[in-house]
Structures are given as structure tokens and as C-alpha cells.
């Protein structure tokens, strides 16, 4: 028995074009997908358009770029025609984004606590003391053992893993329905990565959010998400359930999987990707 649920996010034929001196460069060329309350991974190399897809959904595309789509909707609301004001209300409140490096994406001259409170006060009518209490509770939810101390610290005073937890806390404090995580752990130590992912995973599951997880790491994404979209040169080349990654059909996906050195396999030289021009068509 299937219950048809309205998708949280609908993207149809999304295109992002950057005008340059030598002509238009299409970073995203006709990407379509629908997202429910699930974990969707978008994988691709640098320049594949995965981050620009996330930014277009978030409404953070640079001003000189052109966005076009047959449909770009959050629930019933059309993101393409929505006035900037409404879009601002949506951003942070209903749709949130976690960026790669907490060193650069947190405000360096504001304490972590003030930044979380600022998010709350932007979107909700809430008293200072209540906002502080919510922020502290959120810091606790991302498993920061001493929330009071971290609340009053500046971003440079905490480690990368701690900074990324603070970032997750800031993004989730308003209870968004959709979370876009753009390489959320790539700047972190390998062993810290799993802790942060674990926290993210639990929060997303508990709150029933939709998650778009953007990464270059195919293995990581497939172990974390329900469904994986593989992008190459601005297009989706393959979409498959994460569990069936081994059955990937497209030579690009297979090549990506194959070129990673693993412990115990003795392959010298490593197989490299033989990029076919027709993949980019």
C-alpha cells in the first residue's frame, strides 16, 4: 500500500548559467528530482554542479548567474516566483544549509551563542532568555558537553569538529524541514567526521527532516543516505538506491567507485577514469 505524499521539494529541469566573457557557462544543465522526508545524496567531482544545485535551492546563487527551471517548489510554494522577502523568511526557518568549513562559515567576531540566538530572533518572536535557553538546549543536542562554556566562545576558540557541531546547532535551532549539507565533514579530521555525521543522522531522523547531502565522497554518501544522485558536468548521470551502489550501471559511477585505493587490495597502478566525451552530452 502506498500513500502518495506531497514531496518536500520538487526540482524539474533546473539550470544555472553563469555569463562569462567567453560566453555562457552552464554549471547545472537540467537537473530534476523530487525529495521527500528522506536522505538524498548528491555526488560528483569538483565542477559537476552539485554545490550550485544546492545553492540554487537555497537561493544563494550569485546575482549575476541566471536560474531557470520548469519547476522549483518547496512543498506548494514556488521558489522561482517568490519575492525575495518571503524567500528570506523561508531561508533559515524552513530550509537550512550547512557549509563545509566552520572556520569560514561562522561569523568570526560574534560568539557562537549570539549567532544561534540571532538566527532564532530573526525568525521567531522570542524573548532573550527563552532564545538563550533554546540555544543552550540545541548545543546540548549536538552533544557539546559544556554548552554554557561553548555558548560564550568565539569560533576561533573551538576545534573544527566543535565548530561544525555549533553550525549544525545554529541551522537546526529553528526546526527546518529541509536541510542541505554541502560537504559538511570534508574539512574535519577523519575520526571526527563520523561523530559529526552520527549527530547529524540522529537529529535528521528524530525531527523527520528531508536532507540533501552533497559530497565528493561516493562511499561516505552511500553509507549515509537512502538514495544517491551522481552528477557529471552539470547533469545527473545516474540515480540509484544507496544500497545498490555495487550495481551502478554508468561507467562514471563505476569508475569513481573503482579508483579508490582500499586496504587489502593490491592494485598497481590504480585504475583511472577514462572520461568519455559523450558523458557530458
Amino acid at each position, binding site marked *: 500500500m502506498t500513500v502518495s505524499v506531497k514531496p518536500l521539494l520538487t526540482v524539474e529541469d533546473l539550470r544555472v548559467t553563469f555569463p562569462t566573457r567567453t560566453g555562457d557557462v552552464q554549471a547545472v544543465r537540467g537537473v530534476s528530482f523530487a525529495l521527500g522526508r528522506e536522505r538524498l545524496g548528491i555526488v560528483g567531482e569538483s565542477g559537476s554542479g552539485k554545490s550550485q544545485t544546492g545553492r540554487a535551492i537555497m537561493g544563494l546563487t550569485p546575482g549575476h548567474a541566471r536560474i531557470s527551471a520548469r519547476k522549483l517548489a518547496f512543498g506548494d510554494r514556488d521558489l522561482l516566483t517568490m519575492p525575495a522577502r518571503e524567500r528570506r523568511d523561508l531561508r533559515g526557518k524552513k530550509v537550512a544549509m550547512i557549509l563545509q568549513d566552520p572556520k569560514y562559515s561562522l561569523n568570526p567576531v560574534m560568539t557562537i551563542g549570539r549567532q544561534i540566538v540571532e538566527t532564532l530572533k530573526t525568525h521567531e518572536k522570542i524573548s532573550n532568555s527563552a532564545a538563550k535557553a533554546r540555544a543552550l538546549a540545541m548545543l546540548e543536542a549536538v552533544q557539546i558537553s559544556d554548552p554554557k562554556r561553548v555558548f560564550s566562545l568565539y569560533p576561533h576558540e573551538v576545534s573544527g569538529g566543535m565548530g561544525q557541531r555549533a553550525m549544525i546547532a545554529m541551522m537546526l535551532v529553528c526546526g527546518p524541514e529541509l536541510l542541505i549539507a554541502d560537504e559538511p565533514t570534508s574539512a574535519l579530521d577523519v575520526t571526527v567526521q563520523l561523530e559529526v555525521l552520527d549527530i547529524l543522522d540522529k537529529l535528521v531522523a528524530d525531527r523527520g527532516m528531508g536532507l540533501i547531502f552533497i559530497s565528493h565522497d561516493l562511499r561516505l554518501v552511500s553509507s549515509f543516505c537512502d538514495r544517491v544522485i551522481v552528477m557529471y558536468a552539470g547533469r545527473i548521470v545516474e540515480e540509484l538506491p544507496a544500497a545498490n551502489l555495487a550495481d551502478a550501471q554508468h561507467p562514471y559511477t563505476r569508475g569513481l567507485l573503482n579508483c579508490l585505493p582500499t586496504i587489502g587490495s593490491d592494485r598497481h*597502478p590504480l585504475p583511472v577514469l577514462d572520461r568519455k566525451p559523450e558523458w557530458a552530452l
Partner: protein
Amino acid sequence: MTSALSIRDMVVTYDEFAALDHVNFDIGTGESFGIVGESGSGKSTLLRAVSGLASFDQGTLSVNGRPYSGRKRDKEFYRTVQMVFQDPYGSLHPRQTVDRLLLEPLVIHGFTDIETRINRALDEVGLGSGFRFRYSHQLSGGQRQRIAIARALILEPKILLLDEPTSALDASIQAEILNLLEQARRDRNLTFVMVSHDLGVISHMCERLAVMKNGKVVETVPRKALENREFSADYTRQLLVASEGFRRG
């Protein structure tokens, strides 16, 4: 086996903080040696102290039997030991062409057959002479790292220090660079010291590896120990778990 690189009780302190705390290594000629550790464990400090970019306060360093002090190194040292850095976007001079980048070490060390050496170096890293007069911003990340490797190899060193040479690159480009490094090592019988946080890369490239934590060497194990899980350090186990991807617990 003679050791190409021998480090005894090396200590590096920044103010009161011991970044390296009595580290000992013996790396044989032609060996490929890996170092893993979390950030702040001292692995990059070790490479910088060996390469002469940072001075060390105590201990001894000898390269092919010749001792070197913590501070001044002669030209002979730099002809023997070269380094490739993590970020090819940061390690190439933005206002120099590839030609200038490759020329500089040759001029410093008084080479005369400059023309042939530059062409050969570019061919060797698979770029060809078409790249010779480009600036680094006209190159992709993988191409930049090839230039960085060409610059290191152009002096025909015996020891190559590699500080996370592929962690800034895409997986498919990583495979190409690792293959290139292996080829260079085979052709020239180079000694590698490679730092990485990716156990897959280390086990692919290195015969032995050391695990560092808080400026100390926690353990040194052969590659086989990774496959058979024969190691004692907790951090090695954590790294191994991390290399297998996320698991819902």
C-alpha cells in the same frame, strides 16, 4: 639495508608546546614510509623539520649518513630531499609561469641543460610542453599537483617528502597522481615519506607506516598489519573504522 633518513630523538617546541616529542625513525633507501595521525599530532611538523622549513630544537637528523643540524642546510641537502605539499592552490607562485617555477630550482643549483630538463620534467608528469608557459591559475588542481611534483623531481632528489599530496583532489584525480608518484619512485628508486589521513592511500603506497599522536609515535607497523588488523593503538583502529564509511549505530 642502509637508511636513507634517520631521525633520532627529534624535538620541536613552539613556546612551551612540544609539537614533536622525541621522535625516532629509520627509513631505508627506496622504502616508502607512511605517517598517519589526527590534526595536531605532529605529522606535518615532522616533515617540515626534516625538510628544513622548520628548525628542530633537539635530536639528530641524518640523510644518507650525513648529519644535518636543525637550522642551516647546504645545497646538497636540498638536492637530496624535496617536498610536495598538500594544497596545489597554495604551493605554486601565482605570478610565475610553469617555466619560471621549474627554472628556479635549476638556476639555484647551477644546472646548465635547463631546456632539456624542463621539457623532460613536464613529459614525465604527463603534461607535455604545451603547459610550459601557463600560469598556475590556468591549470586544474590535478595539473597543479603534477607541476608541484615536476618541480620536486627536477633536481633528481633521492628522498621525496609528501604532505597529503592528494587530499585536496577528487578521487579520480587522486588515482592518477598516486600512479604518477609510484611510477616516479620505481624509475628513480626514490625514498618516500608520505603523510596522509587516508589509510587506504597509505596502505596502497607504503610498505610501513607509523601512527602519531600528540607529537609522539604511537606505533610503527607493516602494511600487512592493516589488512590483518594487527595493531594496538586505539587511534589506528578509529582510523580504520572511519575508512570504512558511516555506520548507523
